[in-house]
């Protein structure tokens, strides 16, 4: 049995179940408790779990994220909310040095089972400083794990895996997905956990591989329908779900089947997850490629505010279709 839940509800259910499972799990962040979360992901959890388990913090991201890292070394399992992942910029040292390196620098003596979560996306007319897309950035630091679910079920399954993981997991949600709905297995049917590192083939096709993560998956699925209906092109849509660990096998399997690839990535053009996936594909499936690997990324400028063009700056179904047609 499964129910229809919103992405937000699915996340909340995952958090709630993990709070129940392990008394060391705590939620922490700005406005997560009494205010019920800036985006209401944690709604009701403070009321249910109380001050000790759900903690409001001042606007001190370096301080409270570092505090969570320190506490995690002692066995607490903090799940920290960044109100926007964009605010990583003021906590960067804690995120990439203390969390990512403490295990290594201690020769394996310390570990850091934290989750940092929050929305990481453009598209909400909040301008450049609030619209960073940091999946690729953090995945480039060994010691960190990164995932970015696109559907309610994936959001729930992955947040539970992230919380149980004994390494730091940076969990990237999407403001524009919070309200989207989908089927999520019923808790009565058992513990629903999706392991990190497993991609999901969200649509099967044979002509081209559309590889994406996060909200770009939704765009890719929409583009795939258009491609099929209007151009007879049948696309595989592979949702990476997890960026690090990365399901390289699934990527290569799709490419070896379709021989053509378009990568969709909300990052700006220089770098991002897609540049890395592109390199991996050409390195490992060189002889299978019938055309250059193409990408659809965010137009290479800081995020524009104007809602009249912001959607054009971001990947969207129209841009994906055009890109596919350019090589198909």
């Amino acid at each position, binding site marked *: 049995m499964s129910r229809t839940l919103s992405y937000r509800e699915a996340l909340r259910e995952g958090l709630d179940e993990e709070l129940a499972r392990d008394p060391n799990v705590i939620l922490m962040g700005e406005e997560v408790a009494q205010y019920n979360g800036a985006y209401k992901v944690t709604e009701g959890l403070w009321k249910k779990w109380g001050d000790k388990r759900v903690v409001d913090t*001042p606007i001190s991201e370096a301080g409270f994220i570092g505090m969570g890292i320190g506490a995690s070394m002692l066995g607490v399992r903090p799940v920290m909310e960044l109100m926007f992942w964009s605010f990583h*910029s003021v906590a960067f040292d804690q995120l990439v040095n203390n969390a990512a390196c403490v295990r290594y620098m201690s020769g394996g003596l310390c570990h850091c089972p934290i989750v940092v979560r929050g929305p990481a996306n453009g598209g909400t*007319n909040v301008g450049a*400083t*609030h619209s960073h897309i940091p999946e690729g950035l953090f995945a480039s630091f060994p010691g960190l794990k990164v995932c970015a679910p696109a559907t309610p079920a994936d959001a729930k399954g992955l947040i539970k895996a992230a919380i149980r993981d004994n390494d730091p997991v940076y969990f990237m949600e999407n403001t524009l997905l919070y309200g989207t709905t989908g089927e999520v297995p019923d808790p009565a049917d058992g513990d629903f956990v999706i392991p990190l590192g497993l991609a999901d083939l969200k649509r099967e096709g044979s002509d081209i591989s559309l590889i994406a993560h996060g909200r770009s998956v939704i765009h890719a699925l929409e583009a795939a329908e258009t491609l099929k209906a209007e151009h007879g092109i049948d696309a595989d849509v592979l949702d990476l779900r997890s960026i690090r660990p990365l399901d390289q096998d699934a990527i290569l399997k799709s490419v070896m089947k379709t021989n053509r690839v378009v990568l969709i990535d909300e990052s700006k053009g220089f770098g991002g997850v897609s540049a890395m996936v592109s390199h991996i594909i050409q390195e490992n499936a060189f002889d299978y490629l019938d055309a250059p690997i193409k990408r659809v990324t965010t137009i290479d400028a800081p995020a*524009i505010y104007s809602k009249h063009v912001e959607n054009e*700056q971001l990947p969207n179904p129209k841009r994906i279709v055009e890109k596919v047609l350019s090589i198909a």
Partner: protein
Amino acid sequence: MSSATSNQLDFSTAAINQSLSKERKIELYTQMVRIRRFEQAALKYYNAGKMGGFLHLYIGQESVAVATISLGGENDHFITAYRDHGHALAVGMGMNECMAELFGKQTGCSKGKGGSMHYFAPDKNYWGGHGIVGGQTPLGLGLAYGVKFQEKEGCCLCYLGDGAVNQGAFHESLNLASLFNIPVIYVIENNGYSMGTSQKRSSAYTGCLAQRAEAYGMEWDVINGSDVYEVRAKTHIAMERAKKESKPTLLEIDTYRYYGHSVADANAKKYRTPEEIENYKQNHDPIILFRRKLIAEGVFTEEDADQINKAAADEAAASVKFAEESPAPTIADISTDVYWETDNQTEASKIGRHFFND
């Protein structure tokens, strides 16, 4: 060490206020009213879906921007956070370009690229409009550093919220300001809340937030924000200190926002009691209080004041029309204003790939 200036009862007698002409007083009133009317119009059209993103209203806090900025001279600079409409109008930006920015139009002050949180007018010594809490505080320091470097007698007023005081960059800035004798004045606009978190739940302090300045051997003061004269009188002291002694000050101005943190703040009436909000509106509203004072002083009449209100409302309505009728940015516009060199098509801009579009 410094401490709060003594609580003078009537700041209208301070020399800096005595020197105000009738016209200037009316202008101060008018500016406050214009800010309020501008934002009320913005709110209306936000709710009508005409703009996206955040809209952080300044309504209730107008006296802070207007009174402090009224003291500014040629070499005085201003920079604030995302709650920036009030300062923008107070430095002299037009309603049109401000409203058009909210509407995301090409004619906006930032061409529709910055939005509500990112108003700029360097020609009016106004340096934004910044969205990352506390992130503007080192910039304010730098503007004051620049003034001093250029050997001009001036200063920078850098505004921040009561929640922003707990950002590391602000602390680093305070130390640098004091250590280097930078003519910067940090103005904490203390409206009691950072989003849904009250001051007591976000900050540990002795006495008040401004007193944290003592940690850095810095002067500080606390100001009642509902009194335009008090804000001017006390801020003036800090500005004189900056200009004559090249010394920084930390000011805390008590104020209040009537609306939520942003228009999207659905909880605005949950973390504050309706009585608290009503009390401010009735007893501390800076516009009402200043209006009363000016009438008592014989500066203008009730009718004059009403007329000012109406003119401001009309101006706001006109700015909405301007914004609505203005063109939106084009897709090509997305790629300008990234680099000075490419915008100016310099030699340097022609060498190498600057943009990485697929």
